[in-house]
C-alpha cells in the first residue's frame, strides 16, 4: 500500500490551484448570484488539459490518470462547485463513454474536441419520469434508413445551456425496457434539438442546468455509441466513473468550507479570545478534518480501482455516498462556526452549504448508492 501523489500529480495540483484561485475564485460568488455560465473558465481550463484529464493525448486529452482527474476536480470545486461539476460532466460523463465505447471515427470527431476543451459536452439521461429509475425513460429513437429519429424530453441536464455536444439516451424499443436503451452522440446544432430556459436552483447556480427536448431530431446511425440496446449498460458504467468525479467535487467543496471556517475561527473573537480557543469549535474542526481525509482517501481508492481496470462500482458508490453526506455535514458546521455572518452572502460559506446539497442527489442519490452497496455486500 502506498498513498502519495507522484511528481506529475503534484505539479498538476499546483497548476490547477493557481488557476482556480487566480481565475475562477474571483468570480465564483458573482456567477452564483447571476447564474451566468462560466464558459470562459471552461475554455481556459481546456487549454490546461482539464477538458479530458484522463483522455489519451492522441484524442486531445492530457493523458493523465483518474487520480489526477480527482485532484483537478477537487481543486476547482474548492473555489467554485459550479465550475467543478461542468468539468466533471465533460470528463466523466461525456469523454469517458466515447473513449470506452466509441468508434475510432467518433473518437476523432467528437472526443478529440471535447477533451481538448474546444467543445463542451453534456449527458442527457434523466427525464421528468425517469430519475433513479433511469430504465423507465420514454425518449425514443426510431431507425429511418441511415438515421435515427429521436423524440423526447430530458431534464436537469448540467451544462446543457451551452453544450455543443450531448450524449443522449433513447429507446429503440420501449417494450424491451432497459434492453431497448441506446446511446447517441448528438450535436446541439442539429435540427430538432432544443434547450430550455435557465433552471433556478438551490446551489451550483452557474452550471447551466436546463431541459432538452428533441422533436424529430435526425441523428446519423454512425453517431450511435455501441449497439442498439447497449445504452443502459453504457449509462451505468459511465455513472460509476461520474460518481468518482462527484466525490472529488464533494471533497473540494468540503475542503473549501473547512479552510474558510478554520481561518474565521482564528480571527473571530468572542468572550475576549478567538473562538478557536473554545473546545466546541475545536471539536467541530477536528471532526471536519477527519471526515474530509476519509472522503479524499475513499475517492482516491475508487479512482485507483478504476485506473487499474478493477470492478469499482462498489468503491465508487461508497465514495459518493460518504463524500456527499460528509460535505453536507462539513459545510453545515463551517456555516455554524461563522455564526450569523455565515448566513450572509458576504461570506462564501453559505454558497458552499448550498452547493454541497446537490452532491447527495445527482449521478445517483444516496439511496441509489446504498442499493448498489448493499447489493455488492450482500452478494459478496
Amino acid at each position, binding site marked *: *500500500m*502506498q*498513498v*502519495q*501523489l*507522484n511528481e506529475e500529480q503534484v505539479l498538476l495540483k499546483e497548476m490547477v490551484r493557481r488557476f482556480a484561485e487566480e481565475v475562477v475564485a474571483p468570480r465564483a460568488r458573482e456567477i452564483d448570484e447571476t447564474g451566468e455560465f462560466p464558459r470562459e473558465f471552461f475554455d481556459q481550463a481546456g487549454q490546461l488539459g482539464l477538458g479530458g484529464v484522463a483522455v489519451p493525448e492522441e484524442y486531445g486529452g492530457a493523458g493523465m*490518470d483518474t*487520480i489526477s482527474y480527482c485532484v483537478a476536480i477537487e481543486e476547482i470545486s474548492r473555489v467554485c462547485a459550479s465550475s467543478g461539476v461542468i468539468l466533471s460532466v465533460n470528463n466523466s460523463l461525456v469523454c469517458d463513454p466515447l473513449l470506452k465505447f466509441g468508434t475510432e471515427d467518433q473518437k476523432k470527431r467528437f472526443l478529440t474536441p471535447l477533451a481538448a476543451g474546444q467543445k463542451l459536452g453534456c449527458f442527457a439521461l434523466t427525464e421528468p419520469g425517469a430519475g433513479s429509475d433511469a430504465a423507465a425513460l420514454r425518449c425514443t429513437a426510431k431507425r429511418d434508413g441511415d438515421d435515427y429519429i429521436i423524440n423526447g424530453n430530458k431534464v436537469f441536464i448540467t451544462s446543457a445551456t451551452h453544450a455543443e455536444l450531448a450524449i443522449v439516451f433513447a429507446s429503440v424499443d420501449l417494450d424491451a425496457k432497459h434492453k431497448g436503451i441506446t446511446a447517441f452522440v448528438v450535436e446541439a446544432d442539429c435540427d430538432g434539438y432544443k434547450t430550455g430556459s435557465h433552471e433556478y436552483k438551490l446551489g451550483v447556480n452557474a452550471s447551466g442546468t436546463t431541459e432538452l427536448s428533441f422533436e424529430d431530431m435526425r441523428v446519423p446511425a454512425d453517431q450511435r455509441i455501441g449497439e442498439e440496446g447497449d445504452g443502459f449498460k453504457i449509462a451505468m458504467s459511465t455513472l460509476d466513473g461520474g460518481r468518482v468525479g462527484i466525490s472529488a467535487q464533494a471533497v473540494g467543496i468540503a475542503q473549501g468550507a473547512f479552510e474558510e471556517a*478554520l481561518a474565521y475561527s*482564528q480571527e473571530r473573537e468572542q468572550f475576549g479570545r478567538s473562538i*478557536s480557543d473554545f*473546545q466546541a469549535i*475545536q*471539536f467541530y*474542526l*477536528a*471532526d471536519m*478534518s*477527519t*471526515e474530509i*481525509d*476519509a*472522503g479524499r*482517501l*475513499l475517492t*482516491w*481508492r475508487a479512482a*485507483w*480501482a478504476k*485506473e487499474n481496470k478493477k470492478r469499482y462500482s462498489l*468503491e465508487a458508490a*461508497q465514495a459518493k*455516498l*460518504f463524500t456527499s453526506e460528509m460535505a453536507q455535514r462539513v459545510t453545515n458546521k463551517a456555516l455554524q462556526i461563522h455564526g450569523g455572518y455565515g448566513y450572509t452572502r458576504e461570506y462564501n460559506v453559505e454558497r458552499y452549504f448550498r452547493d454541497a446539497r446537490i452532491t447527495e442527489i445527482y449521478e445517483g442519490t444516496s*439511496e441509489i*448508492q*446504498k*442499493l448498489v*452497496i*448493499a447489493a455488492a*455486500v*450482500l452478494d459478496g
Partner: protein
Amino acid sequence: MAVINFELDEDQELLRGEVRRFAEERIAPGVAERERTHDFPAGILREMGEMGLLGMLVGEDYGGTAFDTVSYVVAVEEIARICPSVAVTMSVSNSVCAWPVYRFGGDDLRGRVLPPLVSGETLGAFGLTEPGSGSDAGALRTSARRDGDDWVLNGEKAWITNAGFAGFYLVMAKTDPEAGSRGITAFVVPADAPGLAVGQPEAKMGLKASRTAPLMLNNCRVANDNILGVEGQGFKIALATLDHSRLGIAAQAVGIHQRAVELAVAYAKERVQFGVPIAQHQAIKFQIAQMATELEAARVLTRYAALREGESDGGRLAAQAKLYASEAANRACYAALQIHGGNGFSEEYEISRLYRDVRVTTLYEGTSEMQRLVTARHLLRG
C-alpha cells in the same frame, strides 16, 4: 510511476492470510467461553509470540519480526475480528511496551527487555493512567525518589492492561515534582521488583478475557539503568507512544467493525420475516450499506495513518484514525445488533459480545474527546 496503490503488498497479504487462519483456527474456538469465565488466553499469546506477532515493531537484532506499521495494523485487525480481548493484549504488548523500549531504549535495556517480550515468554504493559489522572495524564502523582543507584517509586496506577501477566511495566513517575510534565520519567519496572503489587482485576463491561487491574507501587525499588530514555523525558515518550498505539486501537476497532458487518449480513440473509429474508427490506439494506461504507473509511484512514507514521502530520492522522474508527465501529455494532432484533440481545449471538467489547475503543488510549483536541491542536498550529 504510480505511487498510489490501495492494495496490500504481497508480504502484507501473506501475513494477513496467515494471521486470519491462526485467528480462526486457534483463537475462535473457545472465545465465547473465555469471555464468560474471564480466562486469560496465555497459551494463545505464547503461540503468537512464536509466530512473531508480539515483536512486530522490534528489529531483528532483538529477535523482533520488524514489520512495517501497515502490516502491524493489518495483523491487529485480523485478530480483533475474532477476539478483541486477544487483540488489545497483543496491541498493548507491541505498541506501548516493546515499541517505546525499542525506540527510546539503550542497548542494555533493549537486550534485557525485548527478547522475552517478542518471544511471547512474557508480556508488556504500560502504566500511565492513575485514579486521578486519565485524559489529564500530566497530572499523575506517582513519585520516584533517587536512592543511590536505585529509584524508589510510590503511587497507584489504574486500568493497566495485562497487569499480572506482564513481565515488564513501563511506568511513568514524577522524578521532579516542581517541573510539571517535564518532571516525568519512564521506568521499566520488572514484575518481580520489590514493592510492586497487582490489585484486584477490574470487572469490565467487555474485553473480559483481557486482564485489567491496578498496580500498587509501595517503595518499589527500580535500578537507575531501568530508566527509558533520560530523566524528565517520560511525558514525551508517553505521548509519542500514544500517537503510535492509537493505530493499534484503530485497527482493533476496524477488526470489530468488519466482524459486525459479516454478522449482520449473514443474519439478514438467513432471517425471514414477512415471507422474505430481512436482507430484502430496504431498511436493513441501507443500514448494511452505511456500515460497509464506514468500514472502508475507517480502514483506509487507519492504514493511511500507519503509512504516514513518523511524518509531521503523523500524530494528527493517528488521532483521526482512532477517532473515526472507534466511533464508526460503535455505530456499526449498534446497527448490527439492531438488525439481529431480540436475538442480538442474547448472549448466544456473537454480536452481543462485540457490542460490549467495542464500547471501550472510544475510551482507551485517549478518549474521542482527546483525539479531537490533539487533531485541533495540529490544525490550529497550521
